[in-house]
């Protein structure tokens, strides 16, 4: 499994989850976990996904998210889960 975290932050608007999830579906990326909240008007979402179904490498997936970043004017970061495991699990 190639687990990654996708974090999405920015001003709340309609269709953020739908837009991101649709793109992930198109790329055959499975969503394992989602948490989403509104913090002082800011939309904050974290998705844990599995990249192993996707034909694209990490950079490729990152590039595919670029149009959504621009369209939604949101900060969208994708990073491998290993960094969180390393920091918080022995």
């Amino acid at each position, binding site marked *: 499994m190639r687990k990654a975290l996708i974090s999405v932050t920015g001003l709340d608007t309609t269709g953020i989850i739908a837009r991101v999830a649709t793109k992930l579906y198109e790329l055959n990326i499975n969503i394992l976990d989602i948490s989403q909240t509104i913090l002082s008007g800011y939309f904050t979402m974290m998705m*844990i996904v599995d990249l192993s179904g996707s034909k694209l490498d*990490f950079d490729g997936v990152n590039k595919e998210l670029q149009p959504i970043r621009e369209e939604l004017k949101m900060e969208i*970061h994708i990073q491998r*889960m290993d*960094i969180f495991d*390393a*920091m*918080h*699990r022995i």
Partner: protein
Amino acid sequence: MIETGEILQTLRMIQEENFDIRTITLGINLLDCSDPDAEKCAQRVYDKICRTAKDLVSTGEHIETEFGIPIVNKRISVTPVSLICQADPRPIARALDRAAKEVGVNFLGGYSALMHKGATKADERLLASIPEVLSETQLLCSSVNVASTRAGINMNAVKEMGEIIKKTAELTADSDGLGCAKLVVFANAVEDNPFMAGAFCGVGEPECAINVGVSGPGVVKRALEEVKGQPFDTVAETIKRTAFKITRVGQLVAREASQRLNIPFGIVDLSLAPTPARGDSVAHILTEMGLEAAGAPGTTAALALLNDAVKKGGVMASNHVGGLSGAFIPVSEDIGMIEAAASGALTLEKLEAMTCVCSVGLDMIAIPGDTSAAAISGIIADEAAIGMINNKTTAVRVIPAVGKKAGDRVEFGGLLGFAPVMPVNPCDNTEFIARGGRIPAPLHSLRN
């Protein structure tokens, strides 16, 4: 499964608290490049570095993107050049600088000589060339080891280094003595240090190795904000926990870089390395402990606790810890230090005391341009004595600011920052430095 709070903590460390991997440093052995013909040797050096390090920068950038953690510098350290040059070392210096530019690294260290007990002819040639080389190259860093706990202090080398630092400052006066920011004088230099200007690849090192330096003073300061007013036991525990988390990421990056480049992992250097950016200051960790400014009474104790707790927390997070490991206290590279020095709270003498308990020594300190070579040698000798007696690495990286006096300001830019020129004790020490010879190794060097 990782909890949301943990993910947010990691993201906050990176995005708000300046947590980064300071450097991936590739150590490369150059002993096999030696040749009596300086030009041939230089060509071999250039070819080997370009071959070995061709993927270093792109690999670092990929890791950076995938893990979402900045890797600020990619660097190379090489075998001390005095060990491979059988003739004029200057062509090798130029080849090193060219190779560093070709592979795209930020710095290359190893224009170095190890002369804690005495100088070889090659050491002498290398030393004589340092001012010219540092004024003509951009990415090359130089270091000279003049003392060790085992060998004592080579006072001839100490004397010479005072003069070399002066000359380097004069030749690079138009850039505020930048050449001296790339030159460090060591006692007990380590062979696997990933940090500049003192990185070189020691003779006990393998053919090549990946050494990683972590950083994150902002993260430690933020963690201490949560335990305001609590006893030092809690302070130490908090630093340990934070250092553990930081180092685990350093270990992850080191392992990943090692696998991708197919180069053995060397060490993680558990350092708190500041930058001039606000929120990335070691001095501000000390003030968070309750001091008005770095330099206030209690500063040495605060730094001792910090330095020790960083090691204790970090050592379990990595399977090989090395390098300099601890808290750096450069002046120009730390906004809290800069402000403390400018306000007069922090003096050269207090910094010297702090070097007894920090990871290295007197670092990135601007001194008046009219400071004598003997005075600089005296500063080096004092620092070397601290290192020799306390069995630790110490170093001097001072920058005589040509044409400037105490209170003026020098500007280096980037990670090297800016600094107020600090006064140096004006009493004469010429006769002391003129003696030369060796200060014998201390009794506790005889440990067998």
